[in-house]
């Protein structure tokens, strides 16, 4: 039987980066095929080539046995290839119907086709138990339902090869189970599913075949039943993962941060944080685990002064944080910093650095008021010295203070940010997704730094979607789901399944 998709020696380079190198494997029709790898492994590039966003530099792509040169997404669609992206490709202020019709309107006037499309959509929803109202507006739908709309779009276009890019990143446990049911139905109908993910459990659960990629090449392509998660992890990472780093005995000091009944309601009256209460003591790492989008980002924004809560109490070393009576958070982060709160933001390029500034000018971002000489002049000599010291201490490469920070790798950028915040000698350190977009070697060094800070008596709040990271670092684990804390565990009580349930909204207390 012809493979549905076959890659032969696909290579693609972007400037200095070889994103795909001689990638070769095939995908059987009527199967669910997983493609697994870390950030930067080349999976997304490969799928973009399949979907027509890029052209490969060399190599052959065969669809159902015939060689194809897919020049744009329209050609991919014509070949029966559909893609559900990680970031949904939906127009928020339009209905499901209009979103599906976009690109396949069938004529200058919309009205004639609208009824036909609506009927067909309802039929597809029935057949695959998708439960989507074609006349609903996208922005009124939950993330899980929006994803179903994306899938609906592809089925409507008679996609036979469906690519799903990290589909469960924003789903609850229950939503993921529903999704997998739908995928199984598709497989029964003879459709081919390509699942891009970094979650080993999912591969085990639903795929027939898995291809592991690392550094732009294929490390292995095997039947799922013939391998284990440990083997896959090793192929993915290249060496056994060290999960236990040395740390001092757990001996937390006084309470540094007290959060009481924190609530956040946004302008659309959606409750993003619901009566969140917890505390962090000196010398401990409290980790907040949970799928992205359950209020963790908003919590970090509030604790760092970047956003105001709707109600609730925040106390830093027994004193209320000064946000009462304010209309907005403009300028508030400076006050929080003065009180000893440091922040390593989740979105590095958006919040943590000014990407067009050189490293030197980023090395004091947030602390610029402390560097003035007379007349408000910046003390460049000491800034340069501090920066050079920092770069050496944290092994940033290249160690050039004058280089634009955008030219550094993600890991090195993160080192600069971390170095900056640590150098401020904070009492409380807020850290969001510290190892997102960071290479393996740097991950270990960043984790070591965080543990060193903890051992030195600093209170640390860690927000991470990576359970492995949570397990490696946390003294206490709080799980958030839909804006509320659903459970708390001590480090030694770590249980992935229980945490998974808590993430899915099942409260244990």
């Amino acid at each position: 039987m012809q493979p549905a998709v076959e890659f032969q020696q696909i290579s693609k380079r972007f400037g200095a980066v070889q994103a795909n190198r001689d990638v070769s494997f095939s995908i059987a029709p009527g199967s669910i095929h997983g493609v697994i790898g870390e950030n930067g492994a080349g999976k997304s590039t490969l799928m973009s080539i399949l979907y027509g966003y890029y052209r490969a530099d060399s190599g052959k792509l065969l669809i159902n046995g015939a060689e194809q040169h897919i020049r744009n997404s329209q050609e991919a669609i014509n070949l029966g290839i559909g893609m559900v992206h990680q970031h949904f490709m939906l127009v928020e202020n339009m209905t499901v119907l209009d979103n599906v019709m976009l690109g396949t309107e069938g004529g200058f006037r919309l009205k004639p086709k609208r009824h036909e499309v609506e009927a067909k959509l309802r039929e597809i929803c029935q057949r695959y138990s998708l439960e989507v109202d074609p006349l609903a507006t996208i922005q009124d739908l939950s993330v899980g339902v929006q994803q179903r709309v994306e899938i609906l779009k592809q089925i409507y276009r008679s996609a036979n090869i469906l690519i799903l890019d990290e589909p469960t990143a924003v789903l609850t446990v229950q939503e993921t189970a529903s999704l997998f049911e739908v995928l199984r139905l598709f497989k029964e109908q003879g459709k081919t599913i390509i699942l891009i993910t970094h979650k080993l459990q999912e591969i085990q659960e639903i795929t027939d075949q898995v291809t592991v990629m690392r550094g732009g090449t294929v490390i292995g392509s095997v039947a799922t039943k013939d391998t284990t998660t440990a083997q896959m992890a090793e192929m993915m990472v290249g060496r056994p993962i060290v999960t236990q780093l040395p740390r001092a005995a757990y001996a937390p000091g006084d309470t540094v941060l007290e959060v009481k009944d924190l609530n956040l309601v946004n302008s659309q009256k959606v409750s993003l944080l619901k009566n969140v209460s917890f505390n962090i003591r000196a010398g401990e790492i409290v980790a907040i685990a949970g799928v992205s989008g359950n209020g963790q980002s908003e919590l970090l924004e509030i604790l760092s002064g970047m956003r105001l809560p709707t109600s609730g109490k925040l106390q830093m070393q027994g004193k209320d944080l000064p946000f009462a009576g304010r209309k907005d958070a403009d300028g508030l982060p400076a006050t929080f910093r003065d009180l000893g709160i440091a922040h390593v933001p989740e979105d590095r390029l958006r919040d943590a650095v000014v990407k067009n500034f050189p490293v030197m000018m980023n090395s004091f971002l947030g602390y610029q008021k402390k560097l003035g000489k007379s007349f408000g002049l910046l003390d460049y000599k000491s800034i340069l010295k501090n920066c050079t010291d920092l770069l050496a201490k944290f092994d940033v490469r290249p160690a050039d203070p004058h280089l634009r920070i955008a030219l550094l790798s993600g890991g090195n950028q993160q080192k600069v940010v971390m170095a900056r915040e640590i150098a401020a000698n904070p009492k409380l350190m807020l850290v969001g997704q510290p190892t997102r977009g960071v290479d393996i070697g740097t991950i270990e060094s960043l984790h070591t730094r965080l543990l060193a800070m903890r051992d030195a008596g600093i209170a640390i709040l860690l927000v991470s979607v990576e359970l492995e990271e949570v397990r490696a670092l946390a003294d206490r684990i709080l799980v958030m789901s839909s804006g509320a804390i659903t459970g708390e565990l001590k480090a030694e009580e770590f249980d992935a399944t229980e945490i998974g349930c808590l993430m899915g909204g099942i409260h244990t207390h």
Partner: protein
Amino acid sequence: MNQADLPRWATAFALPLLNLFSALLVAAGVIYLLGESPIECLGILINAAVLNPEGLGYTLFYAATFIFTGLSVSVAMQAGLFNIGSEGQMYLGGLGLTLVLLWLDSSVPGWLLIPLAMLGSAVFGAAWAYLPGYLQAKRGSHVVVTTIMFNFIAACLMNFVIISILVPMGGQNTSSRMFADASWLPKLNSILPVLGETPLNISFVLALVALVIYGVVVWRTTWGYQLRATGLNQHAAHYAGISISKTIIITMMVSGALAGLAAVNSIMGSTHYLPLNFPAGAGFIGIAIALMGRQHPVGILLSSILFGALIQGGFDLSLEKANIPPETFIFIQGLIILFCGAMENLYAPALSALLKRKEK
């Protein structure tokens, strides 16, 4: 079209020069279509604006005004704000200094009068920029459209003020009365008589000082750092504890003050009364200068001198060639803004390819 691929000298010099050259090339084409020889016109222009010492004096005189309006627009751009309102802010600046002079010019000696009048112009210019800044910061109203509206409002307001209030009884001109001698800025031809009868005055020196202060403040102070961070990445600036509202409002006020100071040169240095419509487009030229000079002090200086030459040479040219009226230079100004401000990357891929080929 990644400017990051190109070395700094390319983005700082080569591209802007190529863009400027393109604009002038288009202008030359239009001049040719109007029936004149571009080369001949260029010759007349250079002669009138640079080679002739008196003409050079005029060129530098205009440049002094443009340095201030160019700085005004540049400061705002550093914060990510596109201040189109320099024209109106300059106009109101003129009102500010006029009010000070009308009140004090017979009672206060020159050494105090002149600084006070300059203060008046700066304050009024800043005040005129305050509301657009406030609306942008607090209500998200786009500063481009609000400042354009304020230009129109300024024109109407000043029309009323000058004609209905300031014109002295029985006066024929649409302007205020003449100001006392104490307010007249010392001319530079007293030091350099070769300049002849030009209005070039100490404002030029002040403009140079302003450039230096701008350079120091924007690149070497904490406030300048906050300014640039806000302009490059508002999210990161907020993270860094910078108050975006305050930065926007204060920046607009500084920008307005600089535009207001531009009035000092033409009024206290040349006309010595407040005439109708005296800015005559200087505020818009400031936009061209900020874009052409890439908001850098040296760039602003060179661009201002270039534009001074264009205006001065343009006057003489229009006297000689009826088909090239002064409005031609408004057209050229628009071309420069287009090429230097909106098409900066036009030559980047070609230049990048050229450099890569040379590397091999």
